[in-house]
């Protein structure tokens, strides 16, 4: 079963931080990374490495977070490698591209930036349960409800989407089994045949998803869900740790500003 958001329960200081602090920190770090010079990138990377360690994540897990975007990262690298003007290192005639020293450095730098962004986001989803994440987003968006953006509804929508994923996967399995039991074949035959067999699942899966959504909506109504004031089981309260985390991020931002002059 796919683990959504890849939340890894734990009891480290990173896990215990208020989700709002973590979300804002990731936003701040992303901005820092975007604006960073190569030297600053190295510093931020060291900071990220320390956070990963504090959250008791292994380097292998960190590498795992980058794997899904590895192709994309490679593309970024090669585009910069081949298409940056400058001191040629290697000419690939007759191809109209050549590798330049600037291209090599630029490729490494941009790819590293990108990896930093992904890793920062990964630490957030590793150390924060989906519900905490949703709760944090809701609280951060709450000021927007004054201008008519329904932050609580948005939070419930995200939560429902997350709740639906495993349900749909189960349903997909069930439908597949039911069709296999009646002789459908998903594993042999030409690609076209297999594609058609899987496509035959799409319609019943979609119908069942709508049906489920309908039932769920009725059940939510029956349990008193409507627009209007709601409270939550867990209230988010800032602790000393959270203030500390804010201070650390603040110092990072200040340092970046001072370096830039």
């Amino acid at each position, binding site marked *: 079963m796919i683990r959504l958001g890849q939340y890894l329960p734990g009891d480290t200081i990173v896990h215990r931080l208020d989700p709002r602090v973590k979300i804002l920190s990731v936003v701040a770090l992303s901005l820092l990374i975007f604006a960073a010079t190569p030297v600053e990138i190295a510093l931020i990377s060291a900071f990220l490495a320390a956070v990963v360690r504090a959250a008791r994540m292994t380097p292998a897990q960190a590498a795992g977070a980058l794997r899904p975007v590895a192709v994309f990262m490679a593309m970024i690298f090669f585009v910069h490698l081949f298409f940056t003007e400058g001191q040629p290192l290697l000419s690939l005639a007759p191809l109209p591209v050549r590798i330049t020293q600037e291209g090599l450095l630029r490729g490494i730098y941009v790819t590293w930036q990108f990896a930093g962004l992904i890793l920062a986001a990964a630490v957030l989803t590793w150390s924060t349960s989906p519900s905490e994440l*949703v709760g944090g987003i809701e609280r951060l968006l709450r000021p927007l409800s004054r201008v008519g953006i329904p932050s609580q509804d948005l939070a419930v929508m995200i*939560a429902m989407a997350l709740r639906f994923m495993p349900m749909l996967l189960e349903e997909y399995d069930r439908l597949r089994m039911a069709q296999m039991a009646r002789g459908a074949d998903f594993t042999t035959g030409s690609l076209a045949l297999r594609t058609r067999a899987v496509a035959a699942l799409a319609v019943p899966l979609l119908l069942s998803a709508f049906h489920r959504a309908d039932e769920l909506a*009725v059940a939510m109504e*029956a349990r*008193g869900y409507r627009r*209007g004031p709601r409270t939550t*089981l867990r209230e988010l309260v800032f602790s000393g740790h959270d203030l500390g985390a804010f201070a650390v991020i603040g110092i990072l931002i200040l340092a970046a500003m001072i370096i830039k002059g």
Partner: protein
Amino acid sequence: MIRVENLIYRYDAGAPDCLRGVSLEIPEGIHTALIGPNRSGKTTLIKHLNALLFPAAGTVCVDGMMTTDASSVREIRRRVGMVFQNPESQIVGMTVEEDVAFGPENLALPSAEIRRRVDACLAMVGMKGFEKRAPHTLSGGEKRLLSIAGVVAMNPRYIAFDEPTAYLDPAGKQRVLEIIRRLNREGMAIIHIAHDMRDVAEAHRVVVMDRGRVLLTGTPAEVFGQAERLTAIGLDGLPGKGGR
């Protein structure tokens, strides 16, 4: 007291009436069993009790509040809990405790009170220790218990159960029936849709429905005494002697 008078309902305009003039009183604190063949209108009826469906004609009145009065709907849904047939599609939370908290959260209770109710209700259905589990990792029986805990957490006066023992093994059935008995002892009125009449032998009152009407009402002994009328609409006779 829930008072249903001359309730008529059809799902789509032009479709045949699903409920054809149902009148029924459900007093507080009483365990009412609702039996009848498929398509007799049992589920449609209980969906009217907490304002999920509204009468095409006739009225449904909960403790003096009309379900058609929009300003009462919130209070009616707090007083009348509903445990649906399929537990899978009524679990809302991403974890067990969040699901139980969903109803109390909608009532805008303070966090400490929500926590107290979540703990009490999970203990009541025997699911202490499941708080952080994701719903899709639960067994069918556990999902059923969770769906009950989520409704009880709203502290309703009436709870309608739609075939609460469906798909359960014998031990799971006993557990659910024991919970229902216990809730009733604690003063909650129970409306209990059942197919297996052994499940409702200890109800205070049995209501038999057939094709959108109430056919019979009485104590279990009175109702099960009319075996021919029950067989005529396709139900087994006496509890324990049925053909199952």
